[in-house]
């Protein structure tokens, strides 16, 4: 159970203009700028949930993750995770969580991953039996096998990420924080990582909190989405709710006999050339079937397809709506 109430976090950053003169000035007198990274963040996540945490760069995603994983101390608000305050009972807390920062490595660069795993076993004081079982299972699920014997620096990014995720799960954490786990991965690795995350969530009941810019991750993995912007939670709901609420727009592509479409009310023609047209409608104003019958009445249709907004477009329209 994760519970955040009115979490606030500010950063003070030194402000400095460019150029030599400014640099000299900064030596004697420093100006600070306060950045409100998190202004008022509250949410509750139950055990075994899989939650996507999205928002544009600098919205406060990483800060929230760092507070929940005990790295940062917030300036205000309360946070309880499985009954503990992360930054106060750090060692007890981190024993139950796993953290993967997609852009950083927790493995020792110059030695094989197996050596790192061994050390992690000792750091977490994992029982030999449990360790062997977990490692065998992770090796099978993530297809690690030979990778474990290769020095980490010689692994490809996808191979390394599989090792990273395995490393963060050796101690069977109850909660897994994934900060952009699929960043920079190729399609095959992405799918492997997603399948694995889903399996862990289903079989072990691990709570997963995922930040990502890859909307396919969100679509493939999470039931629930939290949208953060300007340091606040702007939306909290299921992906299908979001779609239903925010995506009444449909794109209709038609192929027809003739040159040009006549103008229609409540239909916006985006493209129209050589008998192929792309039209958008708002289903709140004009339902799809009416639009189709209107089109069919005025032209001779050869082909027609209707598509909804992609998750990416949805997120862009959300960002626009909240002006973040």
């Amino acid at each position, binding site marked *: 159970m994760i519970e955040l109430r009115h979490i606030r976090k500010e*950063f*003070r950053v030194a402000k400095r203009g460019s150029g030599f003169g400014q640099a000299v000035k900064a*030596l004697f007198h420093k100006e600070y700028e306060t950045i409100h990274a998190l202004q008022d963040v509250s949410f509750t996540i139950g055990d075994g949930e899989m939650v996507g945490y999205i928002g544009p760069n*600098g919205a406060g995603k*990483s*800060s929230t993750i*760092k507070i929940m*994983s*005990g*790295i*940062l*101390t917030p300036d205000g608000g309360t946070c309880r995770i499985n009954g503990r305050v992360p930054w106060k009972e*750090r*060692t*007890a807390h*981190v*024993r139950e*969580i796993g*953290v993967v*920062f*997609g*852009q*950083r490595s*927790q493995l*020792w*660069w*110059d*030695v094989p991953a197996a*050596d*790192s795993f*061994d*050390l992690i076993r*000792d*750091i*977490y004081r994992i029982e030999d039996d449990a360790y062997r079982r977990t490692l065998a299972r992770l090796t099978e699920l993530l297809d690690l096998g030979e990778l474990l014997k290769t*020095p980490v620096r010689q692994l490809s990014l996808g191979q390394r990420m599989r090792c990273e995720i395995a490393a963060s799960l050796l101690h069977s954490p109850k909660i897994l924080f994934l*900060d*952009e786990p699929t960043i920079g991965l190729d399609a095959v690795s992405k799918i492997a990582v997603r399948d694995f995350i889903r399996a862990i969530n289903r079989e072990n009941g691990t709570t997963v909190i995922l930040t990502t810019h890859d909307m396919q991750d969100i679509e493939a993995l999470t039931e629930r989405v939290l949208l953060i912007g300007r340091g606040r939670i702007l939306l909290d709901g299921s992906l299908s709710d979001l779609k239903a609420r925010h995506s009444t727009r449909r794109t209709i592509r038609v192929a027809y006999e003739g040159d040009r479409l006549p103008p229609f009310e409540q239909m916006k023609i985006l493209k129209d050339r050589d008998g192929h047209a792309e039209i958008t409608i708002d289903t709140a104003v004009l339902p799809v079937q009416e639009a189709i019958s209107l089109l069919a009445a005025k032209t001779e249709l050869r082909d027609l397809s209707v598509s909804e907004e992609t998750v990416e477009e949805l997120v862009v329209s959300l960002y626009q709506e909240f002006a973040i």
Partner: protein
Amino acid sequence: MKLYWKYAAILLKSQMQYKASFFMTAAGQFLVSFSALLGVSFLFDRFHTVDGFTFSEVLICFSIVLAAFSLSECFARGFDAFPRLIQSGKLDQILTRPRGVVFQVLTSNMDFTRLGRLAQSILVLCYAVPHSGIDWTAEKILCACLMLIGGAAVFSSLFVLYAGFSFFTIEGLEFMNIFTDGMREFGAYPLSVYGGGVLKFFTFVIPVALFQYYPLLYLTGKSQERGFLFLPLLAFVFFLPCYAFFRFGLHHYQSTGS
């Protein structure tokens, strides 16, 4: 403790991945400190004593300070290179592991090439010990050992203090080098040669004299004060304010963007 050795083993293994580089750096460290040694010997070419201390006595002082410094540079390297730990985000990772922060910072980095310097200081010591004319009783040997341990403690504490500062700024932290790298150089001579003010500063503010000057007086028989023998242990107290400051910094840690 078992875990400490495991960390040490994995770090040594990592550094041994580049064997040539490792041994050349170690040899370099060994040679570089010769310049300081030469400085001492040139000085004694002209003057036969410095503030009442003979060449061999100064060499003992020199080698113990150097050895203490090399030990802390090797084993407290994590604190010495702390700004890098912050910048690379390694500290975030340390904080997500269920072990003490100090322990993990210590084990994040050990620079075994610094043992090249240690080797040199041991060589110098081997030369100075029989030449010094000191009657090496058990007490005197204990005194020398305590000087070494106390010295390593003070240098390590300074690194911890330095790490504490780096939570707030990384600009202008070079002044700390006066007390660490600088002390390695001018700590070669008993601190009294720099005058009373300096001696007081390094007794009460940064307790370098506690492991260097006073025990040396006892060691060389210039003072019969038995209490001087245990002063290096007092130097350990210096760790407390340094550690407190480090915790204070950690509480205000801002992390870096990802």
